[in-house]
């Protein structure tokens, strides 16, 4: 039953979910889900619509409180913390629908995401230092938005918005990145670029990617977790899960 005991001697897990259930009005969005992410691990999560992928991210980032279960990040009980505290612990999230601040410029969006003191007075006194400016410019290059730095985020195309949000995630410098459908609306080339970027990040950070695009998942070359109806259906390499009859049944119809 206890997943932690099965994978026991490995390094202390970074993220630890055990028996997490979320019930909305009698509907079980998550059903006794258990999941362990190790430091530095890259993990892909796939599953049909309504499998509970986004709900799982909501639970980890404090948007939704689990009805029952354990959610730990290092030594912190995430079920007791609000979104901002969880973010400050070092968990960054990219949303399925790219969300940013349309009335601020691309540069300002990144500046807000930049890891720095977050209190009102600190923000009031904040002066953008040379090092920080360099980091922002570096990230702008990385996500290919250098030429649009002073345009309002609201005028960007969908693909550019995806990139900007990934850039914001990088600026936060989190220990754990939760990335929800990062390549929707991207060209093949961009998709490749994104996969390479995530693989590069993963050595130092843990990255959890939710994605539908199986080619992309294959490009990540990571362990894959398949969710279905709120619980884990299968786990292993991409080849392993693609050959798992239960996964085939879920994806190809019953």
């Amino acid at each position, binding site marked *: 039953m206890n997943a932690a005991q099965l994978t026991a001697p490995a390094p202390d897990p970074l993220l630890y979910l055990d028996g997490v259930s979320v019930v909305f009005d009698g509907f079980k969005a998550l059903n006794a889900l258990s999941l362990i992410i190790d430091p530095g691990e890259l993990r892909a999560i796939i599953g049909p619509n309504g499998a509970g992928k986004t709900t799982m991210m909501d639970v980890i980032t404090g948007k939704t409180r689990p009805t029952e279960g354990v959610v730990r990040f290092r030594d912190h009980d995430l079920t007791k913390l609000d979104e*901002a505290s969880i973010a400050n612990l070092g968990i960054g999230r990219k949303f399925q629908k790219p969300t940013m601040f349309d*009335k*601020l*410029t691309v540069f300002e969006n990144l500046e*807000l995401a930049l890891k720095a003191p*977050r*209190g009102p007075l600190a923000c*009031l006194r*904040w002066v953008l230092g040379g090092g920080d400016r360099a980091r922002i410019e570096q990230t702008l290059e990385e996500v290919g938005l250098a030429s649009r730095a002073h345009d*309002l985020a609201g005028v960007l195309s969908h693909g550019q918005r995806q990139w900007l949000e990934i850039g914001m995630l990088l600026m936060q410098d989190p220990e754990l990145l939760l990335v929800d459908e990062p390549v929707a609306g991207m060209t093949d080339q961009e998709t490749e670029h994104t996969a390479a970027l995530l693989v590069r990040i993963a050595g130092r950070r843990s990255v959890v990617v939710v994605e539908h695009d199986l080619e992309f998942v294959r490009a990540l070359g990571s362990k894959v977790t398949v969710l279905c109806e709120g619980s884990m259906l299968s786990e292993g390499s991409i080849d392993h899960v693609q050959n798992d009859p239960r996964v085939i049944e879920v994806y190809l119809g019953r």
Partner: protein
Amino acid sequence: MSATLASPAPSGFGRMTLRLVLIGAVLILALLPVLNQMPTDSALHVSDFVVTVCGKWITYAVLALAIDLAWGYAGILSLGHGAFFALGGYAMGMHLMRLIGPRGVYGHPVLPDFMVFLGYQELPWYWLGFDHFPFAILMAMAVPGLLALVVGYLAFRSRITGVYLSIITQAMTYALMLAFFRNDMGFGGNNGFTDFKELLGMPLNTPNARSVLFYASLALLLGALWLCSAVTRSKLGRVLVAIRDAESRVRFLGYDVTQHKLFVFVLSAVLAGLAGALYVPQVGIINPGEFSPANSIEAVIWVAVGGRGTLLGALLGAFSVNALKTWLTTVAPDLWLFALGGLFVAVTLFLPRGLIGLFTKAPK
């Protein structure tokens, strides 16, 4: 929803012009008390009425700035800012009442007339200290600030936003209005405070006092403008805009939204309180009517008319709507409420960026 004053978005030709107009307007305003001292037969003479009215409008402009800071930037549409303004006014009113001393109708050395009339034996404890000017000014900031802190904390912590927050703040000012109408509150009930005699040793209603109050208001306005512009130009200003447009996203970036909103809400309430404190000695009266929900919402419409989310817009709105009000209530008093109601409708439907939107380019 126009580009902010602070944003590095390309500033159009219109914005520069506006800034020059603002500087010109401040200079002309600053001259008014001087022109008031000119001989009455001079062509440049300005009447007492004009000076007093402009002084009053300046305090309104500060209130508009305060509302704009909360609404235009942080998206907090408070329908209770009139309450902060009135509380500041009451703090100053209490000071002015204490300064009347034995010159009241009943000639009591300490108690204001209404307390003698209501049979008070001694000054209620919460009136103590108000004979000192610095204490009164401190209270004019602290009381609205504290109220904003408590109400804001309760509301923001529970993530009450949008119209719900508006309704709660409206209920707040309504409750205060009911409370201040009561005689046993010790704030003069229905009639409030009036018949003030002096302030800081100057008899009121003299040209001297008028110009001192006028310049104090102007200084407050410039100070408030500087402060608001510092806030909106800083990263805090950008966090506020971010909260206004996508509150929950800001949380996921690790910002404690409650703290930021609370900061700006309290700051805004303190500014409103100071504006009220300077308003009262210029108009010579404060009563519970100032708490009326309609007053607060009228102040919100100044900001909407001028253009929210721009500090210049708030000023423009406060002056233009009040100019219209002063003119229309003398020419055709029955029409004023139609005009005001019409403004609400016209601005929300046809001029979402306010008057300032006519001069500046819309962000694409």
